[in-house]
């Protein structure tokens, strides 16, 4: 009976129903676009926080003082302060030492590069990055610890061979630089430090594809970089990879302020492999260093979305409220028009709830149809926004459909509050007489 009444109502009054569906579709298009934008970034951030591995960036303490104005680094100490290479094994000596899977020190040097056979001009300036490739590090209790970019940046590909560890005459060249300057494995380069000094002849052992800034640089054993720059025994930064467990409330609080934890919580935190605990322990081991977990999404898109999230919520609420009002007035008109029908039902003994169920049922059907249409259009809109704002397509999170359908059913339900009061106010006798 109920479904028959419902279908009848849609068949008879399809124009008004269509209008209501369009209203809801419009509101949910907006909600879908905003929600999928936010949820996509949120999901990526959540994945990052819940990963079982983390990268940690260690720099000298003076460099962690932010002095960046308008994107330009004004910190006078940048590039002046260094970490000691001899201190690196200390990182493998912390409480969670076994969870440190690799570490790579970095020391950038600007050098003038000339290819042998190009004639004797001064050459052009390129960045040389000194690091470990696969270096055994002396750590007490694990004599076999080998580390370097081959473990920390396992996705780097080499065409050829990695330079021998500690060799002063072997380098690898980034893929971009090699293409620009037509360098191939086996070539001989001449590198000269900026402050003068005799140029050094090196052999290219391979071409590296890193997918980052390293593609335009020369990768060399740390010893060579130290020798060229004159910073013997020093490194500028260290990248550490560690096996960690997902962040939770405790680690978030600890990250904010470890001294705010009570003794028991501090012990639990310190003895759990949270990235924040490992970072804290690295800083304990290297007092003049500052360590920071690298969260790529959280540090870029996450910041943007975090700031405009409230704005999105307000816009979504405004869309919700205005479409609920439209639904309300549409339904109210329908109730008034069908007052005789309602009066008849009441006279036959239908309860108020039974009649209301009919109108709410209509509203829910309208909500679901409108919501699905809106979700489909909104998904497209989200792609447009994603491409224009972030320059990348957005993965459409499936949960948005649930949110939007629940949201639009709620719109429909909110819109039927007022009509339900109208129904209650209708007296069968009056309506059947046609007084109202």
């Amino acid at each position, binding site marked *: 009976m109920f479904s028959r009444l419902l279908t009848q109502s849609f068949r008879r009054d399809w124009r008004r129903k269509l209008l209501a569906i369009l209203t809801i579709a419009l509101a949910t298009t907006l909600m879908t676009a905003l929600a999928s934008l936010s949820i996509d970034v*949120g999901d990526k951030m*959540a994945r990052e926080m*819940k990963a079982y591995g983390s990268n940690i960036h260690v720099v000298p303490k003076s460099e962690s003082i932010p002095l960046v104005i308008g994107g330009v680094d004004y910190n006078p100490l940048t590039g002046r302060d260094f970490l000691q290479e001899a201190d690196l094994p200390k990182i493998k000596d912390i409480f969670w*030492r076994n969870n*440190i899977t690799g570490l790579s020190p970095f020391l950038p040097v600007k050098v003038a590069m000339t290819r042998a056979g190009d004639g004797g001009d001064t050459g052009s300036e390129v960045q040389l990055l000194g690091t470990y490739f696969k270096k055994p590090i002396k750590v007490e209790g694990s004599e076999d610890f080998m580390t370097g970019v081959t473990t920390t940046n396992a996705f780097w590909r080499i065409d050829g061979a990695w330079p021998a560890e500690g060799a002063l005459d072997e380098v690898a060249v980034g893929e971009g630089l090699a293409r620009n300057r037509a360098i191939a494995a086996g070539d001989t380069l001449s590198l000269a430090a900026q402050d003068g000094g005799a140029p050094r002849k090196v052999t290219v052992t391979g071409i590296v594809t890193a997918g980052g800034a390293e593609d335009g640089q020369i990768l060399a054993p740390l010893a060579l970089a130290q020798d060229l720059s004159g910073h013997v025994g020093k490194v500028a930064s260290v990248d550490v990879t560690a096996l960690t467990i997902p962040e939770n*409330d405790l680690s978030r609080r600890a990250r904010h302020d470890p001294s705010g934890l009570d003794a028991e919580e501090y012990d639990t935190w310190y003895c759990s492999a949270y990235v924040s605990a490992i970072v804290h322990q690295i800083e304990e081991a290297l007092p003049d260093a500052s360590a920071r977990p690298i969260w790529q999404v959280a540090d870029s898109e996450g910041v943007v979305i*975090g700031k405009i999230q409230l704005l999105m919520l307000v816009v979504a609420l405004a869309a919700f409220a205005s479409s609920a009002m439209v639904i309300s007035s549409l339904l109210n008109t329908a109730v008034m028009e069908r007052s005789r029908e309602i009066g008849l039902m009441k006279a036959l003994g239908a309860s108020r709830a039974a009649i209301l169920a009919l109108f709410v049922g209509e509203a829910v059907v309208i909500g679901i149809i409108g919501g699905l249409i809106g979700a489909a259009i909104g998904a497209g809109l989200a792609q447009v926004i994603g491409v224009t704002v972030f320059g990348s397509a957005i993965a459409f999170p499936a949960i948005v459909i649930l949110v939007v359908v*629940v949201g639009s059913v709620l719109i429909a339900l909110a819109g039927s509050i007022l009509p339900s009061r109208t129904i209650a106010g209708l007296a069968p006798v009056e309506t059947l007489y046609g007084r109202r």
Partner: protein
Amino acid sequence: MSFYLADGFRAFAPATFLLALLAGLIVAVADRRGRSEGLAARLSLIAAFGLLAGSAAGVTAYAWSGEAASVTEIRMFAEATALGAALLALLAAFALRFAGAVLLGQLVFALFSLVLFAQAGIAFSDAVTAHSLTATSVLNTELILNVFAIALTAFALAGLAAATSHVARRLPLAALLTFVLAIVVEALVWAGDVTLGLLQVGWLEVTSGRVSLVAKADYYSDAAIYAELVLGLALAALFLMRSPPARRLSEETAGSARTEGRKALAFSLGERRWFRGLAASLAFVAGSMLYYDLYAAQPPALSPAEPVEVAADGYLRIPVETVSDGTLHRFAYVTSDGHRVRFFLINRFDADHVAIGVVFDACMICGDDGYIQRGNEIICIACNVRIFQPSIGKPGGCNPIPMKHAVEDGRIVIAKAELEKGSRLFTELVEIEVADPVTGETLINTRAPYSTEFEGRTYYFSGRDSYDTFRADPQKFAAEPLAPAAVHWDPEV
């Protein structure tokens, strides 16, 4: 998300069920006196207020714990209050049923809802504190699912409350019986918890009788909600049997008989709807609980451990090639005092570089829950830490505890003395025959009346006398320390 459903039901379903039964009883009594107009709405309002105020108070009290009082004290206080309120509610229910004290019933209902929901709020906060609602502050799928689960819990419980109170109103006597039984079940759980709390904060002296009582109460407390669901199901079944059958009208009936017939049909159909509503909400609660308890909350199972025994010369030998394939090979050894000691061997590197890590299946920090291998990862079950495979065999962090061993002719050699050391790391006991060190009598370790630990070994005694003799001079009776291994030890460990 399923833990929010299960924890929500475990905390709030008993309170909802009890209050709905009481509400139904109150309305039933008022029905008899013809004074039930608007009463159901008033009771819903009271319960809603109790829910908001009570659970807000509970959650706030839990959040503030640590400053004024510990979580144990707060839980204990809330449960003791709930016990008192339950007693009061029992009295009120009888007064209601047999003396018709409707106003008293309402007052007690208000008090009971406040106390019960406060207790539920604390229990819920305590249960979900291990989970986080969201990993980041930006809207994400997990956050939405969790919020959705909480809303679904509230929705299901509202349905349960409405249907239960309707059924209780129709069957006041059965509802009274159900109410009494459900309160007894809950009171037992609370009493066990309160006793445990009293023991923990030291207000009650620890005796073996009390500890065993608390342990039993704790063991059965997880089943309490299932007991209440069964009670609810029984009530629903009774309701279905007692409600009038839906009789279609024959064409001949006419006049006022027809009107009455239609009314009876409508009533009966309505009652059936209530039955279906109650059955559906009970089934949903039971389904979510069962899914969580039997599937989602199960710890990952350890791979089976191969039982091993040491050879006559006191050494265990395991060929390297049988354990060098990169998977975790778990073994179990039963010590002379009956402890089942698990240990595992795993190749730390790859097929070309064989280096076997020989470790106990336990961690210094997390205890003897053990480790599992999932894909390429070795995971500590207790704390979910991934273990860096090349580091297995080295102490520190959450690494498995290394075992002394040697490699001889392509075999891993472990001394019996090393395996026996595991008895202090593992709690699992196997029933074996042991000898009383004083009298030499043979007895079963798990049934021995007295036992004590000495130098990491457990000794069992047939009676008080031999126990006392041993305690007086343990050195004299203790087993000879096992000879240290005479092989060349791997210098690394």
